[in-house]
C-alpha cells in the first residue's frame, strides 16, 4: 500500500467509528464530527435491517436489548467477508454459534433456529443446478431413484421447524430432520419434517442406492424390524416425493 500513514488512519478511523459508534476513533481527525453520526446510523442500519429481514423469527424472539447487543457485537467484532450483502447473514449465524449466544441467552435451540431461517434463504437463492436425465417409468423398490438437486437436508437438535419457539423445552432435545427444497413449478421453498428412516432414504438415494437396499441397510443398522406397515409408509413417502417432483424419476 502506498498510502501515507495519516491517510490510512483516516480511512481506518472512519471505518472503526462506523463499526463501533465510538468517537475515539475519529476525534483526532480533521473532519465534520457532527456529521459522522449519520454515517454510523446508515452503516449500522444496513447490517441491522439485513439481519432482521433474514431472521424474522429470531428477531421476534429476542428482546430489544438482546437483539441490539448481538448485532452490535457482530458488527464490531466480525470482519464481514461476503461482498454480497444478501449472503452476509450466513456469517452472522456462524458468529452466533461460535460466540455461544445460545448459552448466554439460555436459548438452547437458538443455533437451530438461525440455521432453519438461513436455509430458507439459501434454498431460495442458491444457484440453479443441472437436472439429471431420468426415465419416467420404473420400479420404486428396485430401480435407482433420482432426486431433484435443489434441496438441503438438515439435522437439528430442536424442533424449531414444527414448534413455536416459546413452546420448545429442554425435553424436546433429540434428532430432527428437515428437508427443504425449491419447487420446480414456481421456485418457492418448501419444508418437510422427516423421520430418521426417511432422512436416511434421502441420503442414500443421493448415494445411488435402491430403496430396497436402503431399507434393508437401515433395519440392519438399527437392529429393528421391518414390517408391512413401514413398507407401506415408505412407499407412500416416495410416491409423495414423486408427486412433489422431489423425486424426478428413475435412472
Amino acid at each position, binding site marked *: 500500500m502506498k498510502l501515507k500513514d495519516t491517510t490510512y488512519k483516516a480511512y481506518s478511523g472512519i471505518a472503526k467509528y462506523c463499526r463501533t459508534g465510538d468517537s475515539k476513533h475519529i476525534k483526532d481527525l480533521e473532519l465534520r464530527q457532527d*456529521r459522522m453520526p449519520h454515517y454510523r446510523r446508515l452503516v449500522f442500519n444496513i447490517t441491522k435491517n439485513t439481519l432482521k429481514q433474514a431472521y424474522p423469527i429470531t428477531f421476534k424472539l429476542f428482546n430489544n436489548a438482546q437483539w441490539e447487543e448481538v448485532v452490535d457485537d457482530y458488527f464490531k467484532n466480525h470482519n*464481514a467477508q461476503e461482498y454480497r450483502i444478501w449472503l452476509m447473514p450466513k456469517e452472522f449465524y456462524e458468529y452466533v454459534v461460535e460466540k455461544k449466544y445460545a448459552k448466554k441467552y439460555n436459548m438452547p435451540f437458538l443455533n437451530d433456529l438461525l440455521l432453519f431461517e438461513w436455509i430458507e434463504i439459501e434454498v*431460495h437463492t442458491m444457484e440453479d443446478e443441472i437436472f439429471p436425465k431420468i426415465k419416467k417409468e420404473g420400479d420404486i423398490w428396485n430401480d435407482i431413484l433420482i432426486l431433484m438437486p435443489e434441496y438441503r437436508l438438515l439435522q437439528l437438535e430442536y424442533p424449531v421447524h414444527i414448534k413455536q419457539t416459546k413452546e420448545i423445552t429442554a425435553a424436546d432435545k433429540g434428532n430432527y430432520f428437515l428437508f427443504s427444497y425449491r419447487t420446480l413449478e414456481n421456485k418457492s421453498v418448501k419444508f418437510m419434517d422427516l423421520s430418521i428412516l426417511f432422512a436416511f432414504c434421502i441420503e442414500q438415494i443421493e448415494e445411488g442406492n435402491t430403496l430396497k437396499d436402503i431399507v434393508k441397510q437401515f433395519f440392519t443398522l438399527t437392529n429393528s424390524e421391518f414390517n408391512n406397515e413401514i413398507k407401506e409408509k415408505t412407499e407412500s413417502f416416495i410416491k409423495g416425493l414423486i408427486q412433489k417432483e422431489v423425486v424426478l424419476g428413475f435412472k
Partner: protein
Amino acid sequence: MSVEGKVGIGFRRDFATNFLNSDVLKPGFVEFAPENWIGMGGYWRKKLEAVVEKYPILCHSLSMSIGSPDDLDMNYLKDIKQFLDDVNCQMYSFHLSFAKCDNAHLYELLPIPFTEDAANHVAEKIKRVQDFLNRPVGIENSSYYATAIPEMEEVEFINKVIEKADCKMLLDVNNVYVNAFNHKYDAKKFINDLPLEKVLYIHMAGHLQVNEDTIIDTHGEPIIDPVFDLFEWTIAKMKPVPVLLERDFNIPKLAELQGEVSQLQGIVNKVWQTVEK
C-alpha cells in the same frame, strides 16, 4: 439497441414482478447492481433473465470499494467480469468511495480522504480494474457528509483520479446537488469543472433533508425540481448519454416511477433532440 439519450431505471426486486408483467414502466434500459445477482439462482434468476431478454443492460457495482486502502479482491473481480458478460452489459460503473476497510465489508459508501496519495492509490486500482475487465469504467461522484484530512477540493480530487486512471465518469447530478448543499459550494461551478466529455452516463435520484444544513442521499424520495433544473442545465453542455433514475427505498407505484422517467425523457428530448438528428 443504443442507450444514448435514453432514460433507464435501476432494477429492484421490490417491483420486479409488476414491472415484468405490465407495460406501465417503460425504461430505455435497466441498470443492475451485480452484487445483488451474482450466484443467485431460482426465482430471481428467472426474473433477471427476463429483464436481460427485454432491455439493454448497464451495471453499477456496490462493493468495488475502489477507494479502500485494502487491495483489489480478484475473486470478486472475476465474478463481476463473468456477470457483465452474462448480461451483455453495455456500460459499467462504481462509486468513488470505500465500503471495505481492514478486511471487513461495511456495505455503505464511505468518504475517501481527498489527499494526493489517496488519489494516486485509487487511480492505480481503477487502472487495474479496467485492464482486468477489459472495458472502460465510469467512476461516480459519491455523496458524502464529511471528509477527513482534505488536501484538496472534491472536484480536484475527481479530476485527478479520472485523469490518472484514464477512466470515464458516472455523473450523479443529485449527488452534486446534495454535496453542494452540504458543503456549501456552487453546484454549477462544480459541474463546469468536471471532465464532462468523459461522462459515460448520468444518475438522477431523490434525497432527504434531515436538518437545516444536511441532506442525506436516500434514493427514497422523488427527484426535486432544483435537481431537475440542474440536470437540464448540465446536459445542455454534453453529448447524449444514458440517464438513469435510481429509486432504492419507499418504492412508489410503477406509474409514479414512470412519471419520473417520462419527465426525465422529456428534458432529454428537449435538450438533446438537435444533437440526435
